[in-house]
């Protein structure tokens, strides 16, 4: 606890940044550290004992997103998946074209991979979003040209929760025979994800966002789609990702995917209800607030909300002192300043943009958690507003 060890109830509402590993997941992982520790590429007992575990996990991931097990590449995180998908496709398809389409609200892992490619001579179109963080499908289709080799558009936004119309994007991509990658790091485990129904060619998963451990992720790559690897060497993952398998992590990811299948109802039901209770409660108790993101097409667990006249970090600190963990923008941006590029792209008034707070609910949250926040938040906001040169003006 950052604040002098005072005992406070801890409420974790930053599940879009990361989640606790679930008990069932950790339990499944434990045998693979000391007893079944072999290298799955080894032919002896120690290796064979674990290669089956990697295979099952591959099946579990494939089932969650409705693909074939061979279409799954295990990775170390969402950023790796995004880099492999985007850079790997761009390099592989370079002879076919040099144009990539993405959106202004992608995670930095996608945007910066695209920026990197721009330096390598690729052209990148960054689609704008409207005030709810939504792209315009006509604009997307109009941006496709002869040279277009890849569309990368996320499934669910990590800051606002806005859900892109993935199936419609997939249909446009298919119509124009352009490869379609989606960063589904926030979506997997929270909303149903079906790569066939959505017409997705590549999809990024990160384990730690839904109960698997940090250090493991997956990239779905549709059969027949070539990719230049980032890591070269061993024959792991059909030569697309060298490196000894992270067996415990992979096993954990598999179990988390299996659990996710049944949890989706809870996400859509209880979690969504809690999120809505929090949203309504804040709106009714605190004046001059604004919800950011799409009202309807939104991850069920995410609430991004701005408070006029004050700044986000200060709100977070007061919440933190009361034991409430939330975030402002994405976690990985916390040591940078300035406004979130996502909120900025939505055209939110700069002062509102600077005060956006993201509550990311998770399976452990309860109604008491929500009510506690509703109890303490008005006072925090008022205290900060009383300090603000804008409020008094």
């Amino acid at each position: 606890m950052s604040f002098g060890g005072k005992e406070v109830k801890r409420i974790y509402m930053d599940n879009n940044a990361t989640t606790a590993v679930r008990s069932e997941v950790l339990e499944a992982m434990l045998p693979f550290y000391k007893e079944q520790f072999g290298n799955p590429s080894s032919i002896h007992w120690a290796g064979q004992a674990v290669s089956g575990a990697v295979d099952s996990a591959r099946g579990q991931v494939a089932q969650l997103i409705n693909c074939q097990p061979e279409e799954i590449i295990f990775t170390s995180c969402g950023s790796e998946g995004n880099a492999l998908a985007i850079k790997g496709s761009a390099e592989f398809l370079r002879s076919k074209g040099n144009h990539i389409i993405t959106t202004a609200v992608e995670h930095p892992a996608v945007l910066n991979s695209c920026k990197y490619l721009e330096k390598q001579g690729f052209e990148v179109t960054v689609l704008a979003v409207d005030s709810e963080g939504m792209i315009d499908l006509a604009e997307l289709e109009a941006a496709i040209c002869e040279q277009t080799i890849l569309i990368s558009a996320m499934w669910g936004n990590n800051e606002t929760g806005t859900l892109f119309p993935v199936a419609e994007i997939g249909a446009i991509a298919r119509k124009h025979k352009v490869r379609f990658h989606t960063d589904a790091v926030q979506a997997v485990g929270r909303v149903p994800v079906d790569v066939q129904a959505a017409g997705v060619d590549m999809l990024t998963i990160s384990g730690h966002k839904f109960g698997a451990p940090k250090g493991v992720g997956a990239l779905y790559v549709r059969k027949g789609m070539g990719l230049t690897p980032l890591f070269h060497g061993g024959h792991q993952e059909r030569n697309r990702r060298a490196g000894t398998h992270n067996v415990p992590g992979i096993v954990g990811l598999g179990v988390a995917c299996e659990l996710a299948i049944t949890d989706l109802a809870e996400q859509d039901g209880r979690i969504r209800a809690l999120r809505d209770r929090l949203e309504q409660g804040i709106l009714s108790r605190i004046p001059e607030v604004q919800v950011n993101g799409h009202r309807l097409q939104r991850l069920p667990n995410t609430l991004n909300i701005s408070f006029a006249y004050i700044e986000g970090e200060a709100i977070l600190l007061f919440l933190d002192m009361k034991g409430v963990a939330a975030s402002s923008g994405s976690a990985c941006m916390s040591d940078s300043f300035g406004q979130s590029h996502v909120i900025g792209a939505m055209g939110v008034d700069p002062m509102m943009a600077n005060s956006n707070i993201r509550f990311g609910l998770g399976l452990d949250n309860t109604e008491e958690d929500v009510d506690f926040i509703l109890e303490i938040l008005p006072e925090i906001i008022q205290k900060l507003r009383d300090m603000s040169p804008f409020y008094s003006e």
Partner: protein
Amino acid sequence: MYSDKVIDHFTNPRNVGVIIDADGVGEKVSASCGDRMKVFLKVVDGVIEDLKFQTYGCGAAIASSSMMSELVIGKTLDEALALTNDAVAEALDGLPDPKLHCSNLAADALHDAIKNYKEEGA
């Protein structure tokens, strides 16, 4: 991340507010983050008798403002002009690297208020 002193000053900031008939008013907006601080001075015989501030900013900015106010109330204008950003950060037992710029707000807004006082008085 933050020292206990920062947390203390952030949680219970000293001298928040406005002086309606201030002798000098200063303001500073951070170029890097857009955060803003306003300083109000009451000066008697070249000594800062009272100071109030308003801050729109992060935890470090609020704590720096509060610490600055404690450091200069009762000091002469010359002493106050000699207050550096580093001194504010130091008095807070340091700030994390990416937050060092936040302490600039406080000293800069103070200096701006003194300048305003001198101009008004001149």
